[in-house]
């Protein structure tokens, strides 16, 4: 948990109002142009927001701002976030000198930290790998270990930067289920970056698209119960989001040369 | 550091007979320590002594300044430099060799293949010269005796650390360098077959002193302790002269780690000591050296007599009675 190093502004009136409140956020790495250009965003407590956007559109920049990790970056704006923020970085960022379990329980001050760590690892399918070094894990395993580390500490706000990018379909579904289960129990606000539109729709209460440094598109997912691609609402939303991202609704639409296929 | 100081004593006042109880004298004079221990005379000593294994000019001076010892044992040059660099010291004991010509402390090492038979041949030669050390003063004294000036020879400035001089000779980097007796032995043993030689320096270099910072002598208790110590020291020097084999074994072999042969050689080479009970001649010879240094190294002129605390001359004389000349 972030410690009370600074002035602690408690606004009882804000309570349950918004977990995250971002107003007119600007961030730029150089004079050439801003990455975030007056972004406004509000996330309600317990709300699950998926963040889509082109590669290089500023998704990670936004997440780092919310996590308070961009001290050196120029910009203005107002950011309000809860105290307990947990981050899943785009790189898995496991400490190479700590074994997996130690990585997961790092900074966890509960008495049963070890036990909870083991359980979290089991949940992400890494039971038995507690004593492995990070470099002994496959890419997807590392990503899952990082996810376990985040989930084990019950944050009020979970910032996850493509946490499932390196996972196969089955493992990914298992992780979805796990994440959803944990969200139901602890009700954190979640901001999850993903490139998979289906994943966004399946998981989130709201999907937003970042473009030009602002939230270009903000769609509430209004599907109750089982969310299936077959559902027409799902399909419409999917198509709409893909359009927003510049793609027509087919995974691949470029013409394919017959010559090549025959070779 | 020094314990609480005793009563203040003028440098001209008579020396008290007994130090207060608990006075500790810190002495940097390992050879005498060994002699006293070996002869057993140390049991007769009435003062508490804390021995430090420190000898030689720079180290004793450092220790004086750090107030780590009260009295040190050196040749006649270090007290001069102590004086010239602002540490007020007094010589409290003096020693000579019985036959200085036959038992010089230093000889002039000559590099293999270099033709130097006498000090007159030094003209035009490269001579190792360590300005701040006794060896440096010796070189100047030798030049004076040979009737040469610094311009007649090539002085190669280098410090006589360890065996640097004999190495420089062996490597023919210098033609001539003063070597202490221990180095003479090893130098000749190693390089005589290549034509290395040594020649006598022709100047007296046997002066040996005990000296102490003035501040110590102004402490009545310390001064009294030193009075006792110099008496014991004088007897110890004579004991050394009388028991060369025992001293060779105890000091050079056991303490300094020389082989028995080398130890015997060094003791023989250094010859018998005598402790003068009248310092007039000793001081006069010292003045000659001082004058040479003043002339050749542009030091401040000095009446060397002022560096001697002759109250101890009497104390030594009294202690030795008729034993010495």
């Amino acid at each position, binding site marked *: 948990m972030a410690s009370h190093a600074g002035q602690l502004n408690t606004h009882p009136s804000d309570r349950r109002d918004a977990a995250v409140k971002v107003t007119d956020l600007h961030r730029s790495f150089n004079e050439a142009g801003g990455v975030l250009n007056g972004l406004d965003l509000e996330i309600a407590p317990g709300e699950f927001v998926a963040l889509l956007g082109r590669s290089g559109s500023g998704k990670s920049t936004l997440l780092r701002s919310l996590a308070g990790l961009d001290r050196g970056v120029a910009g203005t704006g107002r950011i309000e976030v809860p105290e307990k923020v947990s981050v899943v970085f785009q790189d898995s960022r496991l400490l190479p000198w700590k074994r997996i379990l130690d990585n997961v329980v790092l900074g966890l001050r509960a008495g049963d930290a070890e036990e909870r760590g083991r359980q979290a690892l089991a949940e992400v399918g890494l039971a038995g790998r507690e004593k492995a070094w990070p470099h002994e894990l496959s890419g997807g395993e590392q990503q899952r270990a990082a996810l376990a580390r985040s989930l084990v500490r019950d944050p009020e706000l979970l910032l996850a930067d493509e946490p499932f990018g390196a996972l196969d379909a089955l493992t990914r579904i298992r992780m979805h289920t796990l994440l959803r289960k944990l969200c139901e129990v602890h009700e954190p606000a979640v901001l999850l970056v993903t490139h998979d539109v289906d994943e966004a729709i399946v998981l989130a209460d709201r999907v937003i698209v970042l473009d030009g440094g602002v939230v270009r598109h903000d769609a509430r997912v209004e599907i109750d119960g089982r969310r299936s691609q077959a559902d027409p609402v799902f399909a419409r939303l999917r198509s709409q989001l893909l359009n927003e991202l510049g793609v027509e609704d087919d995974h691949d639409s470029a013409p394919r040369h017959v010559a090549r296929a025959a070779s | 550091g020094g314990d609480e100081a005793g009563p203040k004593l003028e440098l001209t006042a008579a020396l008290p007979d007994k130090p207060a109880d608990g006075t500790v004298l810190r002495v940097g004079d390992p050879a005498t320590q060994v002699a006293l221990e070996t002869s057993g005379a140390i049991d007769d000593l009435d003062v508490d002594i804390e021995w430090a294994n420190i000898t030689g000019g720079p180290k004793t001076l450092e220790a004086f300044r750090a107030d780590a010892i009260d009295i040190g044992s050196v040749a006649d040059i270090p007290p001069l430099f102590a004086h010239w660099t*602002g540490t007020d010291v007094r010589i409290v004991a003096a020693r000579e060799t019985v036959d200085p010509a036959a038992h010089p402390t230093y000889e002039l090492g000559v590099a293999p293949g270099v033709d130097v038979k006498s000090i007159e041949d030094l003209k035009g030669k490269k001579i190792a010269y360590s300005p701040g050390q006794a060896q440096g003063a010796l070189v100047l004294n030798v030049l004076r005796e040979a009737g040469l000036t610094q311009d007649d020879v090539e002085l190669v400035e280098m410090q006589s650390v360890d065996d640097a001089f004999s190495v420089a000779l062996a490597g023919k980097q210098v033609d001539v360098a003063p070597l202490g007796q221990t180095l003479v032995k090893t130098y000749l043993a190693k390089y005589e077959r290549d034509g290395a030689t040594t020649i006598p320096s022709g100047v007296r270099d046997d002066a040996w002193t005990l000296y102490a910072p003035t501040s110590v002598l102004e402490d009545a208790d310390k001064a009294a302790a030193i009075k006792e110590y110099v008496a014991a020291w004088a007897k110890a020097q004579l004991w050394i002269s009388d028991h060369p084999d025992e001293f060779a074994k105890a000091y050079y072999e056991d303490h300094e780690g020389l082989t028995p042969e080398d130890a015997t050689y060094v003791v023989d080479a250094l010859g018998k000591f005598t402790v003068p009970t009248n310092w007039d001649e000793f001081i006069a010879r010292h003045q000659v050296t001082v004058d040479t240094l003043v002339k050749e190294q542009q030091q401040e002129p000095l009446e060397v007599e002022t560096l001697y605390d002759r109250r101890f001359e009497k104390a030594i004389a009294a202690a030795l009675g008729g034993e010495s000349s």
Partner: protein
Amino acid sequence: MTTLTAPYRRAISSETEDVRPLRRRLGPGKPIRFGSLIGIAVLLLAWIVGSATGLLDERNLSAPWTVIATGETLIENGRLQESLVTSGIRAALGLGLGVVVGLVLALVSGLSRIGETLIDGPVQVKRSIPTLALIPLLLLWFGIGEPFKILTIALAVFVPIYIHTHNGLRTIEGRYAELAETLGVTRGEFIRHVVLPGAMPGFLLGLRFAVTSSLLALVVVEVINATSGIGHMITLASNYGQTDVIVVGLVVYALLGVTADAVVRLIERKALSWRRTLAS
């Protein structure tokens, strides 16, 4: 809701505000400009106060004003400048030679196990042996002239360069070597593009030590057959017990050392600007 919103950077203009979540900073934070000078200034102040109040005995550590006066005398009669020039040239030549030798040995030993087999052991032996004890051998082999002095300095210098570069090189991440192998680079390109930049942090740290080593070695080599030089000046003064001259020498050493170190660290900052570390 409990928000943790302390102002991180004040508004640039009255309209724009900049409120960021404040997290306890665990790294050291922004460098303080000329920070290390402050420590030296404190040291200097302690010296001045100590001397003025008599806490520091003038005979053991001359007072700053005495040192300045002595320094002025030394400058007037030209000894200080002369010493600086002589020593400077010696140190620079020795440093240059030592750096080249250390670097080459480190590359050979770092990149081939056979090279390591032959080089690493002897270097460890060399560095376990006091330089002073090697002087007689060096005198015999190289004489007492300038070559001896420069080679001795180089010998002192090459050790930290070798050790640090070798270590830096060996601790380059293995995955970069893998990458280079799949790119099919030649050994020369591998050294130029992967090994040298990867070992650069180590090398530069070694250089910081090498620079001071070259200065410190002056005290050892200028004992022999030197008529000027900072080391010679200090040795001579300590034989005579001239505390004030010694301290002038030490002040010069401190100045040279701190300046050289600052220069190397500046190079470090420039050359390693690609790094994202706790310090940046």
